[in-house]
């Protein structure tokens, strides 16, 4: 029984992780077309990734979008989580449902709705629509993760600060924020990864010249069969691995997943 269980576990882990090993090797190919095993090893396709202009601009758009929308989601989400937890506002349940609704709606619908009923009628720029869509998706994560760390923070430390003469605002910035730091950091990392990897929301909100990295990759692979996307995928996998290991070291991210 135990042997069977461990065999299954090993096979499943190979199934889950193996493809990344294969894609890293395929990205190191020296040949012209995508194949496994690769024809010779070289770094030429890794180098090529950095030369392809559309990948470069898409990478920077994705990075700024991920950082910007995560920060915006935290700026909106932290006060909301705090109010929901501490102020017992009217209709708390309804409001909680509203701010966490974006998680239930499939991304492609969000993208299409924003394009048809916000971008077109109001004439707002498409990059702003991208920020709105990504931020809306991340607000629920921010509220949930920050709520979880607020529940663990006792209210009497704040009461004590206020009694000792701090204003509510001071006690929030000097007592509450430092204490939920790791929750905020976790929310930031989860938000960043979610936005950076997001495809469906961005699908209808990108156009010529404005493309996020995952969508740029999907378009590129439709017409090109060279190993550059494999090299880029390998680089992205290594980047995610580094972020996850850093997060695990800093705050034990697996507690929040």
């Amino acid at each position, binding site marked *: 029984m135990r042997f069977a269980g461990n065999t299954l576990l090993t096979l499943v882990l190979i199934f889950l992780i193996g493809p990344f090993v294969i894609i890293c090797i395929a990205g190191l190919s020296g040949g012209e077309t995508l194949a496994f095993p690769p024809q010779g090893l070289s770094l030429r396709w890794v180098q090529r990734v950095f030369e392809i202009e559309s990948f470069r601009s898409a990478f920077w758009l994705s990075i700024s979008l991920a950082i910007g929308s995560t920060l915006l989601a935290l700026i909106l989400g932290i006060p909301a989580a705090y109010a929901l937890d501490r102020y*017992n506002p009217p209709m708390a349940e309804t409001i909680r449902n509203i701010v966490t*609704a974006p998680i239930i709606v*499939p991304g492609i619908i969000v993208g299409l709705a924003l394009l048809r009923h916000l971008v077109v009628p109001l004439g707002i720029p498409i990059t702003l629509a991208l920020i709105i869509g990504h931020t809306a998706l991340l607000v629920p994560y921010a509220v949930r993760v920050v709520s979880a760390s607020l529940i663990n923070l006792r209210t009497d430390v704040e009461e004590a600060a206020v009694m000792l003469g701090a204003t509510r605002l001071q006690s929030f910035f000097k007592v509450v924020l430092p204490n939920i730091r790791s929750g905020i950091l976790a929310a930031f990392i989860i938000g960043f990864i979610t936005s950076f990897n997001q495809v469906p929301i961005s699908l209808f909100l990108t156009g010529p010249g404005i493309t996020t990295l995952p969508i740029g990759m999907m378009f590129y692979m439709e017409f090109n069969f060279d190993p550059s996307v494999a090299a880029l995928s390998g680089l992205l996998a290594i980047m995610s691995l580094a972020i996850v290991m850093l997060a695990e070291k800093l705050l034990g991210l697996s507690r929040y997943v």
Partner: protein
Amino acid sequence: MFANRRLGILLLAPATLFVLVGFIIPVLILLAGAFRTGDAWSFANYTAFFSQPLNREVFLRTFRLGLIVTAVSAVLGYGVAMAVVEAGPKSKGRLVALLVLPLMISPVARTYAWLVILGRTGFVNVALTSIGLTDAPLRILFTETAVFIGLIQLFFPLMVLPLISSLENMPRDVVPAARVLGASWFAVFFKVILPLTREGLVVGGTLVFVGSLTAYVTPAILGGSKVLMLETLLYQRVSVANDFASAAVIAVILIVMSILTNILLKRLASVRRRR
């Protein structure tokens, strides 16, 4: 709890307004469009949508794949979760990290790996032809099998993680107790383990099922236009044919399914807590 309710409302207002204006209202307008033909309210868009054989096929395929992916993940998930829990606390942390890792990597990168493995000159075909099992490369890409493989790899972690935590919360001695009392492994699983871990199964099942129904990247890359699912059909209807009526109908189907499954999840979880 603090007394100042006005301050509470002030703190909540930005997030609530943002989600309402930037998300809920546009989505509601889009969904309402599914019930409008010309200037009147009607279900005509639905009858038109389902009168097309291709649309019916895509609809059924999406549900079929969703159910199969969920069922297979559940069966494998129990095996893997039990092995992880038995492995002891020390290696457990490392195993969970390995299971979480794929969730952090870009779905495009994850799915692209399968192009390398399943393609005509990919790993599987090279291996099969070199040992002489097949003469010509097999066509695996752009079949339901390829989409199934991609979806399982994508969503399996979402099934196994809740199962691991459910199994850990199960009282330790119930399985040995049932064994001592003469229950077969089969009976132990169905009469002891399954009822006690139902909550984890429901959570994982919902995540995997809704995830598969609403997947875009995997069917787009591994299925192409040969194996359309609801989301890829929606994209195709809009980008190729400007057919917003069908798109709105698909949107309604996806949202209703997603909300229904989530309500079901809450129901099942709360029934268990009340007992």
